[in-house]
C-alpha cells in the first residue's frame, strides 16, 4: 500500500513540477507549484512526519503560494503574464539539468548505503519528541538554531517592510 501510494504521489508530483517550470502562463505555474506542495504534504504523511505535513500546508500552501499569487497580481504587466524562453535557452537548460540528473542518479545508485539499517518498520518518533528536540539545550538539541531562525524571521520581516514601502518625501 505504501509502495503504491509512493508511486501515485511521485507521478503526480512530477507532472505538477514539470508544468510549474514549463507553463507559459505564470499564474498557472504558481497553481501547479501549489499542487506539488500539497502532494509533498501527502508524502510527509507517508513518511510518518505528521507535524511536517501540517506545517507544509500552513506555511507553504497557506503562506508562500498566496504571497506568490499576490506578487503576480501586483506586478501584472505584459511580460509577466507570458514567459516564452527561446528555444536554444530551453535546449541548453534541458541538457544541463538532464546531465546533472544522470550524474546524481549514478552517484545514488552506485553508493554503498551501509547506513540504511531498516526498511522503516520500527517508527517511534512522534510530534512530542520533535518538540523536545527543538527546545533541548543539550548536545542533541536544537535550541540555538531555533532561536537563530526566529531572529532571522524577525529581521526578514523588517527588511521586507523597509524594502517594500514607498519612499517618503524628504
Amino acid at each position, binding site marked *: 500500500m505504501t509502495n503504491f501510494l509512493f508511486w501515485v504521489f511521485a507521478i503526480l508530483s512530477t507532472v505538477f513540477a514539470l508544468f510549474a517550470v514549463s507553463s507559459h502562463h505564470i499564474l498557472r505555474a504558481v497553481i501547479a507549484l501549489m499542487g506539488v506542495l500539497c502532494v509533498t504534504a501527502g508524502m510527509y504523511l507517508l513518511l510518518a512526519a505528521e507535524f511536517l505535513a501540517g506545517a507544509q500546508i500552513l506555511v*507553504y500552501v497557506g503562506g508562500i503560494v498566496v504571497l506568490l499569487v499576490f506578487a503576480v497580481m501586483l506586478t501584472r504587466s505584459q511580460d509577466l503574464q507570458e514567459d516564452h524562453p527561446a528555444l536554444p535557452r530551453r535546449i541548453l537548460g534541458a541538457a544541463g539539468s538532464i546531465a546533472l540528473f544522470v550524474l546524481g542518479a549514478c552517484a545514488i545508485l552506485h553508493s554503498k548505503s551501509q547506513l540504511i539499517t531498516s526498511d522503516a518498520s520500527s517508527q517511534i518518533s512522534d510530534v512530542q519528541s520533535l518538540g523536545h528536540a527543538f527546545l533541548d539545550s543539550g548536545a542533541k538539541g536544537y535550541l540555538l538554531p531555533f532561536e537563530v531562525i526566529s531572529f532571522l524571521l524577525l529581521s526578514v520581516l523588517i527588511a521586507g517592510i523597509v524594502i517594500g514601502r514607498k519612499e517618503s518625501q524628504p
Partner: protein
Amino acid sequence: MITHWLLFTWFIFCIGIYGMLTRRNAVGLLVSVELMLNSGALNFVALNRFVLPNAVDGQVMAVFVIALAAAEVLLGMAILLLLFRKKSSVDVTTLQELRH
C-alpha cells in the same frame, strides 16, 4: 525503497534547476527555487525515516528549510515589487545595472 525516494527528490530538484536556467520572469524563478527547497526538505525527511527511524533530526532540518523558504520568498517578493515600481518590468535578463 530509499533509493526510490532519493532518486525522486533528486529528479524534482533537477526540474527546479531546469526552471532556474530557462525562466526569465522573476516570479518563475521564485517558483523554481521553491521546488528545489521543497525537494531538499523531503530528502531530509526520507533519510531520517530510513537511516534513523527513532530520531527526529531530519524533521528538524526540514522545519528549518521551510522557515528559510518563507523568508526567501518574502524578501524576493519585496525586491520584485521594488523592481517593478522602478522599471515596470520583472524580466531578470534586463537587469544589468551592476555590470556598468
